[in-house]
């Protein structure tokens, strides 16, 4: 069996640590809305392609990019264009 893009796909769980570091919340239980198709999902359900420096997370309903995140040279880069909104639940706030 050859490996293709499918094999590399992860869930939002796969970037939970990275997102927690940036947002300070357990983001996999927080809800986001796709700016493309309007579907709302918990971020744990996102389809994620992760690489050494960062990750791209896509809408489980339509596949559009919801967020891109990368880290390098002491900086975080975030592209949230694919999200119409993001809801951070106070109960999901993490301790330092």
């Amino acid at each position, binding site marked *: 069996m050859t490996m293709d893009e499918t094999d590399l796909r992860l*869930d939002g769980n796969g970037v939970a640590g990275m997102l927690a570091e940036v947002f300070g919340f357990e983001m996999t239980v927080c809800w986001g809305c796709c700016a493309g198709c309007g579907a709302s999902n918990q971020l*744990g359900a996102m389809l994620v392609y992760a690489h050494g420096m960062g990750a791209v997370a896509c809408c489980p309903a339509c596949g559009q990019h919801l967020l891109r995140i990368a880290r390098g040279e002491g900086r975080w880069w975030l592209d949230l264009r694919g999200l119409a909104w993001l809801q951070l639940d106070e109960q999901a706030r993490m301790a330092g």
Partner: protein
Amino acid sequence: MGRLSWRLAEVVEVRPETGRVVTLALEVPGWDGHRPGQHVDVRLTAEDGYQAERAYSIASAPDGSRVELAVERLEDGEVSPYLAGELRKGDQLELRGPVGGYFVWEPDRGGPLLLVGGGSGVVPLMAMVRQRAAAGSHVPARLLYSSRDLEDVIFREELERLEAAGDGLTVTYALTRAQPAGWTGYARRVDAVMLEEVGWRPGERPLAYVCGPTRLVEAVASHLVALGHDPSRVRTERFGPTGVP
């Protein structure tokens, strides 16, 4: 919820599970507990400062400051050959967590439960099964576990014991590559027919947790939805290309 900061854990036990999988028992000072299905991020730092991070599912039920991970050694891996080959009792390990809240089950979420795991994807499901037993829960639970062969089945003896307790847990294996002589169980990959035979009817509204290599997870999740299960009650955790059950 979990903690953000990296902290040092001490390896208190290294226990081989199969030829390629070891359980690492860690003592984590200040650990606030975890929920079954969560993972930790492990960070290794080389002498030149290069760092590699990987996520490992927690295998144990919540138990004070003790946390057990089950790590599969991937031959071309950057982190797992160290964790599952060189790490010894008394060594220290940098970790962060617990992380994750989406792929989590606790007894008060109810059931019935359908757990489908492929290869080392059984690890977070094992935390759920262990917590179910530790809490004295009688939530009906069915575990369908796909493995290459019987030798690669992780936690086999413990699963036998838990099933024999007769509190509503059943364990079914699908052996995809090799089967012992006289094997009467499934000898193929998980498919829709198998899920219909082993799983619950859609009308029973099971909670399904599916974990393993991405291909297996996506095939199982699609079958479950096609069989009529509510997509919002099917939770997945894709492990990527690792493990080939």
